[in-house]
């Protein structure tokens, strides 16, 4: 007896959800700090943390994170 159509659909949705959750887990583990700048016309550029420009960006970002503190989260 073939499975009911809605079960096929539900199975497929849960497979996609599992895939997405696995992707997010890997992303959290593997992601490294980065600095990305976006320019007009959609161009973007990454700056490595050990480059001069990257180091300046990370220092500036660190100060802002310090100012924000834990914010409204108490």
């Amino acid at each position: 007896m073939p499975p009911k159509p809605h079960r096929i659909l539900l199975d497929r949705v849960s497979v996609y959800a599992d895939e997405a959750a696995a992707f997010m887990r890997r992303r959290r583990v593997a992601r490294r700090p980065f600095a990305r700048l976006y320019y007009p016309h959609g161009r973007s550029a990454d700056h490595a943390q050990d480059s001069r420009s990257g180091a300046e960006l990370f220092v500036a970002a660190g100060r802002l994170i310090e100012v924000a503190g834990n914010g409204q989260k108490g």
Partner: protein
Amino acid sequence: MTTVMIQEARARVTVGIFTQMPDAAAATAPSRDSAEAALEFLAEMSPDLRGAAILGPEGEVLAATGEEPERWAEDAAALFAAADGAEGVPVEQVHIATEQGEVFAIRDAGLAAVSVTDRFALASLMLFDLRSALRRLAEEAR
């Protein structure tokens, strides 16, 4: 090839749209009350937000979370200076992800906004929210 041509055409049209917008020429800064309301709305929309500031055309703080608005102005100016200096071209958006949190900055409609969020905040949503807030403020100021 066709896709590239379409993107080039779209870029040309988009440039046309942006040149018509009152970007750097935003004559009047929005009121501090509207900026504060925009910031509150932003905080409500973004559960990951730790803090943010909205800056006027001269880099002055119109609204900021926390007790140190002057520091937001200084540090946001330092961030934009570092970002502009990276390639010698003014940036439109900045996204820096660190172990301690993420920093977003955007310029639009002659205003600027900076926000700090928890790690792994959705960048596209955060930048969209910041841009929308700035555009609404600029429209109100006109």
